[in-house]
Each structure stands twice: as structure tokens, then as C-alpha cells.
């Protein structure tokens, strides 16, 4: 859920080379091959020289300086006016907001052993709101989803998570929508804000978790702010994209009718982009839920805490049960938000009779919801979820059984596969990156950046290479890069296979999509424990984790791309006698080339956001450095530098692939 789908912007000027595309494409391939050959030859000669490797306990001056800055901030926390009057005020406001929602639905309040609104009230409100903003189908889904969490025996935990997610998304949108509108209207602001958004999305949370609790203290405020940092960027990007996507002619028409800027914004731009903006809200919710287990490390209450505690004793069943509740919550919120974004059109389509009934029905629904709230406020049976979570323990023991079975029966197969891939592909590639002199790898990267992405991408690559060297983490960055590229290649293999399958069949799409959603929000360690048994603590396990998280995005983008190929073209090919294989390889894939590039872009960025998780299961390198920096104060600066290196790798590949995507669509 890290980075939002950023479609190549149409407003950007197409590269000047477009007219000679045919000639250029051939020569571009040759140039890429030439760069690789020169690299290999020089590697053979210069192997092991100037590799800039740094032992795991060694620090550079930059790392020490980061340590000092961090210490000095901590030391004068209580005397610094900035803290006293700025951070403390922010903390108070957010703390109050979260505590208010918690006392409403999850935490006992003063004098009451239960929260103000019990389970029946929450289910009632959720059903009513989903119906009012969406339709009756999602209302049923929402009510069933919430009841399911109760049956799992996780009612209070779920409500705590819901309270935090709602507050974080609310705060995020408070900033994100205005900023997004601004970025949509002003190219200049967009250029300024983009690097910050990249930073917020790819900088590992572990790096700033400790400083945040220093600024905002331990408690709901810190957890909310950590979540906001991660959840706001998708909403900003999508809002900006939505504003930009409003056809220019429409805006001009409004102008010529004498609309002021303000009127154009409120009456034309915002209503017309509403649907896409809601998709941004959607992505914010997903991102917020992906933070649930991380914020549990700074005492955020809820499902994340259950997952973290269960994993201390490798209790996969309990962790899976809680993870499943997160998945259910994500799917409910996702479907409701999606229904809300398409409601008006479907309602308009369904005719006037329903419209006439809508108002009284809404009123009646509100009364019914209020009655339920009242009941749940007053009576114990409606306040505390009945039962003792037997469904939950059944789910847990089923998950345990499945895990044990897989561990006992599959590991022979999996080890062979792991060793083949590691020795055949990963090790040679990693050696090439880490054992070449740094300037050789840097030059090759810049060269590839220029050839694939154009001059501007080349300049960005050069800057990123320079900064990577400056972080002192060059060697580890290359190790991480090797695993990430291998993971991305595999993500694309899955993406193409399943994306084409889903794109060609609605049925497959409907069956697979919930699984893809689950893979994106299930806390990684829940499925990593069995993977660890199958593949051991290795780089390969880290690659598998990255694929599970990143492949769904690539699959979804490619499925969309394949579906967008005009029906008539496919029919024409069929009538020309093409078989299915030919249609896929000669028509559908080539015609969704820009979707493929976008999927590569998002795939790699999602893979990079799993680097830290990889560090926890044996990948070493940057991910491990970040985790170590979080756990040992002398290594804090090094962890920060490693975090920066991840951001730099992300920015470098984002700019190259986006430039390439623009070319592909030009």
C-alpha cells in the first residue's frame, strides 16, 4: 500500500524523440547491452577494488553526527520552547481526538466499565453509514464484517484499531486534500512536494519511530502521527492527479462563463474529480492499516498488539486470527469507500422511484441506528460482545494445523528451489553489484538511467548515486538492490501471469481480488513464520515476503491495463485467426505497455518498502541496519543513513521508470 498508482501524467511534454521511436528502440537495446558488456569486462578486471564496504559495527563521521544530533534533541526536551509550545500543543489536540473516539467505541470511560457505544450500536451505525454513502450490499458487508470481528473474540482490539485508523485518516485528509488540490493546480508546488511525499512513503518507519515518541510522547498521538506520515501521501498524490485529470476544455468553459477561480474550484474541479479523490481516501485507509503492527511497538492499542504478542512465542494461530481481523476491516473499509465513490452514478442510473424514497428511508435508518446506539449504551448484552470468541480459537487452531502441515511436508521441495535461485541468479548478480568498484556501478546505473529514462532521469540517477556514496552505506545498498531487483523480476512474472488471467476473465478477477487485498494488509510476520520454516533465515525468505506484498499491486495494474485494451481490437485479432496465446502476446500485452511499466515502477517501490521486514528474516544489508539502528543507540545514525539509502534507491528507480513510462505512452 505504499505508493499510490501514479499514472504517467499526460500534461508532461512528450519526449522529443517520439517521432523516431522505431529506430530509437532498436538502438536503445543495443546501448543497454553495450553498457552491460563493458560493465562485465571491467568487473572481471577490477573485482574487489574500491567496493566501499563497511563492517557491521563500523560507523562513518556522518553516522556519528546523526547520533549527536539525536542525543542533543533528547537532552533538552524539557527546556526547549519549541517542544513546550509547539509539539506539546499538537500532541494535546490529537490525543484528545483519539481518546474521544476510543471512549466512544473501545475503551471504558470514567465510571463506566464499558465504552459509551457498545457493539450493537457500532454495527448499527456502520450499517447505516455504509448504506447512506454506498448501497445496501456494502452495508450488509460492513455489518457482517464487524460482527465477525466480535465472533473472533477481538471486539475491543478491533475497535481500538478502528479508532486509531479513523483518527489517523481524518487527520491525514485534513492536510492531504487541500495540499493535493494545491499540487493539482500548481505545477511548481507539485514539484516541491513530490520529493517530500517520496520521502514519507519510502523512509522506513523504524527510523523515525523513536524520534516521534520523543516529540509527541508515548501514547495515541505518536501512533497517530506515525500513521499519518505514511497514510497522507497517497491521498495527496491521488487528489492532485484527480484535479489534473479534469479535461482542460471544461475548465476553459467555466472560465469563459465568467467563473472566478474559487467558483471554478468549488463548482467544477472538485465535483468532477470527486470519484478519484475518494480513491485517494481509500488508499489512505489501506496505508493506515498497514501500520497497525508497527505502531504496536510504541504502545498503540489494538489488533497490532495481539499480533506482536503472539509472535513473541511464535503463536501463528493467534497472530493469524488477529491479522484476519485487520484484513476484514480493510476489505470492509475499501468496499464501502469504493461504493461511496460510484454511488451517485449508479443511483442516477436506477431511476427516480428510488430517489423519491431515499429521504424517508434515510430518516428511518437514522432513527433505527440511534435506537441501537441507545440500547448498546444502556444494556450489557448490547454493550459487550456476547460469547467467548470460539470462532477465533477455531480459526487459530486451523491456521496452526495448516502451518504445521506445510512446515513438515513441503520443506524438502522448497529448499532445492531456494538454493537454485540463490546460487544461480541472486549470488552472481549480488557479487557483480557489490564487488565492482563503486564508480563502475554508479557509471553503469547513470548510463542505464539516461538510455532508459532520458537525460533528466540520468541527472537524477547521478545525484542519487552521489548521495548513496555519501551515506556511507554503498555496499549494503548494493546488496539490497540485488535482492530487490530479483524480487521485482519475480513480481513482474507473477504480475503478467495473473494480471493477464484476471484481465481476461471477470470471474477470476472476482475470485482473486480478496486474496490480493489480504496479501497487502495481512501483517507480514504472520505468514513469515511458516516461510521461515520453509526457507530458513535467508535472503530468499525476504524476497518471498517482498513478492507477497508487491505482486498484488502489479497484478491489479496489469489486469486493468489488459482490460483497457479496446474490445474491438481483440475481436479483430480473433477474426484474423489468432489463437489465445497470440492474442495475449501480440495484442494485449504490447497494447498495455504503459501499464506494464507502471507495474514495474510500483512493484519495485513496494519491494523496497519491504526491505526492513526482509532485514528481520535474514536479508541483512540495509534492512538489518535500519532495525539495528532502532535497537541500539550507537547505531542510530547508521540506521538513519540506511533509511536514507532506501529512499534514494526508491527515488532513483521511480524517476527512471516513470520517464520510461512516459515514453511508452507517448
Amino acid at each position, binding site marked *: 500500500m505504499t505508493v499510490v498508482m501514479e499514472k504517467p501524467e499526460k500534461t508532461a511534454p512528450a519526449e522529443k524523440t517520439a517521432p523516431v521511436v522505431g529506430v530509437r528502440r532498436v538502438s536503445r537495446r543495443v546501448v543497454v547491452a553495450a553498457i552491460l558488456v563493458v560493465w562485465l569486462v571491467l568487473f572481471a578486471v577490477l573485482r574487489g577494488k574500491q567496493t566501499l564496504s563497511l*563492517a*557491521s*559495527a563500523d560507523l562513518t563521521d556522518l553516522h556519528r553526527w546523526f547520533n549527536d544530533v539525536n542525543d542533543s534533541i*533528547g537532552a533538552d*526536551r*524539557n527546556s526547549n520552547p519549541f517542544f513546550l509550545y509547539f509539539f506539546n500543543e499538537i500532541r494535546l489536540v490529537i490525543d484528545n481526538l483519539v481518546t474521544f473516539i476510543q471512549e466512544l467505541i473501545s475503551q471504558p470511560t470514567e465510571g*463506566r466499565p464499558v465504552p459509551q457505544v*457498545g457493539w450493537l450500536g457500532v454495527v448499527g451505525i456502520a450499517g447505516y453509514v455504509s448504506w447512506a454513502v454506498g448501497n445496501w450490499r456494502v452495508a450488509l458487508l460492513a455489518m457482517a464484517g464487524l460482527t465477525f470481528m466480535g465472533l473472533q473474540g477481538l471486539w475491543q482490539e478491533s475497535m481500538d484499531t478502528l479508532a486509531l485508523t479513523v483518527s489517523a485518516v481524518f487527520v491525514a485528509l485534513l492536510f492531504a486534500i487541500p495540499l493535493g488540490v494545491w499540487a493539482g493546480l500548481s505545477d511548481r508546488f507539485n514539484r516541491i512536494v513530490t520529493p517530500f511525499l517520496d520521502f514519507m512513503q519510502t523512509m522506513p518507519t523504524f527510523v523515525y*519511530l*523513536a524520534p516521534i*515518541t*520523543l516529540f509527541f*510522547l*508515548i501514547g495515541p498521538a505518536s501512533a497517530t502521527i506515525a500513521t499519518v506520515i505514511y497514510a497522507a501521501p497517497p491521498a495527496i498524490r491521488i487528489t492532485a492527479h484527480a484535479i489534473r485529470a479534469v479535461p482542460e476544455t471544461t475548465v476553459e468553459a467555466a472560465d469563459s462563463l465568467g467563473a472566478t477561480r474559487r467558483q471554478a474550484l468549488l463548482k467544477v474541479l472538485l465535483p468532477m474529480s470527486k470519484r478519484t479523490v475518494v480513491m485517494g481516501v481509500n488508499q489512505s485507509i489501506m496505508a493506515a492499516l498497514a501500520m497497525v503492527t508497527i505502531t504496536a*511497538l*510504541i504502545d498503540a492499542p489494538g489488533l497490532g498488539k495481539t499480533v*506482536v*504478542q503472539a*509472535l*513473541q*512465542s*511464535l*503463536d501463528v494461530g493467534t497472530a493469524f486470527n488477529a491479522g484476519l481481523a485487520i484484513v476484514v476491516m480493510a476489505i470492509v473499509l475499501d468496499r464501502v469507500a469504493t461504493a461511496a465513490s460510484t454511488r451517485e452514478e449508479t443511483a442516477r442510473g436506477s431511476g427516480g422511484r428510488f430517489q*423519491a424514497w431515499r429521504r*424517508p*428511508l434515510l430518516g*428511518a435508518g437514522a*432513527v*433505527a441506528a440511534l435506537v441501537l446506539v441507545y*440500547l448498546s449504551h*444502556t*444494556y*450489557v448484552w*448490547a454493550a459487550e460482545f456476547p460469547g467467548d470468541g470460539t470462532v477465533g480459537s477455531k480459526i487459530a487452531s486451523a491456521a496452526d494445523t495448516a502451518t504445521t502441515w506445510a*512446515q*513438515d511436508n513441503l*520443506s524438502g521441495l522448497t529448499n532445492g528451489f531456494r*538454493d537454485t535461485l*540463490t*546460487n544461480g541468479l541472486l549470488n552472481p548478480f549480488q557479487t557483480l553489484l557489490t564487488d565492482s568498484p563503486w564508480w563502475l556501478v554508479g557509471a553503469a546505473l547513470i548510463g542505464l538511467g539516461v538510455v532508459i529514462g532520458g537525460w533528466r532521469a540520468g541527472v537524477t540517477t547521478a545525484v542519487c548515486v552521489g548521495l548513496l556514496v555519501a551515506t556511507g552505506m554503498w555496499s549494503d545498498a548494493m546488496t539490497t538492490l540485488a535482492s530487490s531487483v530479483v524480487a521485482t523480476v519475480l513480481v513482474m512474472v507473477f504480475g503478467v501471469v495473473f494480471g493477464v488471467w484476471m484481465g481476461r476473465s471477470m470471474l477470476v478477477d472476482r475470485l482473486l481480488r480478496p486474496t490480493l487485498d489480504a496479501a497487502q494488509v495481512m501483517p507480514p510476520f504472520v505468514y*513469515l*513464520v511458516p516461510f*521461515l*520454516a520453509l526457507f*530458513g*533465515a*535467508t535472503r530468499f525468505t525476504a524476497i518471498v515476503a517482498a513478492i507477497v506484498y508487491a505482486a498484488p499491486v502489479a497484478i491489479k495494474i496489469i489486469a486493468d491495463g489488459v482490460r483497457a485494451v479496446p474490445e474491438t481490437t481483440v475481436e479483430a485479432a480473433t477474426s484474423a485467426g489468432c489463437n489465445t496465446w497470440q492474442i495475449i502476446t501480440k495484442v494485449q500485452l504490447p497494447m498495455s505497455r504503459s501499464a506494464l511499466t507502471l507495474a514495474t515502477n510500483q512493484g519495485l517501490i513496494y519491494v523496497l518498502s519491504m526491505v526492513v521486514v526482509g*532485514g*528481520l*528474516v*535474514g*536479508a*541483512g544489508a540495509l534492512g*538489518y541496519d535500519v*532495525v*539495528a539502528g*532502532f*535497537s*541500539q*543507540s550507537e547505531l542510530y545514525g547508521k540506521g538513519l543513513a540506511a533509511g536514507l539509502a532506501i529512499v534514494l534507491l526508491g527515488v532513483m528507480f521511480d524517476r527512471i521508470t516513470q520517464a520510461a513510462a512516459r515514453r511508452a505512452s507517448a
Partner: protein
Amino acid sequence: MARHWRAGAAGLAVLGLTLTACGGAKVGDDSSGSDSSGSSGKCGTFNLAVNPWVGYEANAAVIAYVAEKDLGCTVKEKNLKEEIAWQGFGTGEVDAIVENWAHDDLKKKYITQQKVAVEAGPTGNKGQIGWYVAPWMAKKYPDITDWKNLNKYASLFKTSESGGKGQVLDGDPSYVSYDAALVKNLKLDYKVVQAGSEPALIQAFRQAEAKKTPLLGYFYEPQWFLAELPLARVKLPDYTKGCDADPEKVACDYAIDPLDKIVSKKFADSGSPAYSLVKNFNWTNDDQNLVAKYIAVDKMKPEAAAKKWVEANRSKVDAWIK
């Protein structure tokens, strides 16, 4: 239209009233006698950090249970990573950490420099870090548990990650480790590979035993997993005082670390009965392992595990709160 609206509202009101009439017990009816609000005056609120491992949780659960039941404190358990828990001493949000593994860097920062924390004595648990092999290996190769023979077996421990050498698997980076220096200074043909977390390490040992595959790794006690699988310890050159002074030149086994408790300065000066409980709290590795086993293996809730242990060991508890 208006008629429908009225009819609907009336129907719902009737429904609501019916439900209300046969509603059942009301919230607050049972006057919630469970929280002993009467005796909470003296102790007040006690902010107890809970670090994320089971052994710590055992300590915290027992202390919290005694503080609540015997001293009438309101205990607020805060689930935090170590670094953040220490940081909480300065901001006044954490009163006590009840299982600390050395952390000389943090002691220097928060006790010596910022003067916001003080030591509150040992927990009685002895922390012992070392190198371990899966039990089946110790049976099959009896001499493998001496470091001098490790090179002989190095080829057994090769993995896809160890670059042709034997693998020493390390775990969570929060724990002190000078394994890389040990490998170098003892001239072992091994490479340290970072598993990166405790679950990864435990899972590796579990699989090694189940599949009879070789594994040499870093581990430590007290740890609940040793009750499930008694790993065999590899003897490294004996620890002598000061042999670990220079982390680059270490060539001896890890020292036995008495685990200790740290409290905030404010808490220590407050005269709270919870402080003297923390200060007096002391038990053995076996005690902790038992409670940890209740939590990790028997899957009891920490409070239930604490209750069970406290009821069986009343005399020990009484010595802490005398």
C-alpha cells in the same frame, strides 16, 4: 410520502420500546465491584514498561499482579521497544523497566548524563548468551560442543547465505553480540549471518531439530524456547574478567549478565509502595521460565499465568512486599 415517513418512525419507535422493555441487565448495574477503588489512594498509578519478549512479560505480569492485588495500585502496562521505554524515563511516562540486559550505552545516557533514571537492583535472573547447536548434533557429534573442533565441522554448516564458510546464525540486533570478532579472533572458518529477529532464530532451531539439519547459532537464557528444545551449548574459551573490554579483540565466551531493573528517578523518590515492590522483586531463572512457559507454551493470558504462580509461591511474594 409523509405518511410513510411517519409510519416508519412510529414502527421503529415501537420496536425500540419493545426491545428496551425486555432489555436485560443494565450497564453499571453490578456496581463493578472488581476494581478495588478504595485502596488505590496510597499507591496511585504505576507505569510499567513491557518490552517485547516473553521472559520480560513474565516479570511484568507478576509484578503487575502483585501491585494491583496486594498494593492496590493502578497499573498501566505500556508495550514498548527497549529504547523507547528508556526514553520514557525522561518524559515521565515510564516508571520502571523490570528486565534489562546490560545496555551500558543507555545506562550512560539516561543514568549518568541525563540523570532521569536509577538502577533498582538485580532481578535475580542470570542472562547467559552463547553459541548453541541443535540437540541432535550434540548427540551425533559429541565433540562438536567444544569450539576447538568447530573448524572440523565447518563444512556441515554451509548454507546459501554463508559464502562457502560455515554459518553462525545471529538473531535480534537488540542483543549484545560480538560474534564477528569471535569468529575472527578464534580463527574460525565461519561467517556470521544475521537472521535479524528472534522468531527467525527460534524457527531456524526448530527446523534444524525436526529435519536433522545442522545449525550453529547465537542464543541465550532465560528463554522459554529452551524448555521446548534444550539446545546444546558450545564451549567457547572461558570468560575472564576484562577479556571482553575491547570489542575488536574479544576471544572469550560471553559474561554471565545479572539482569537488572531500572526505574525513573522520580518514581524512586516518590515513596510509592510500587517502587519498593520493584526494588525487592527477585526470583530465579526457573521461576521465570515457569511463568514464561505458562504464557508461551500453555498459551495462558499473562495475568492468569501470574495469578497461578503467585498463588503457588506466596512466601516469595510476601518477602517483596513486607
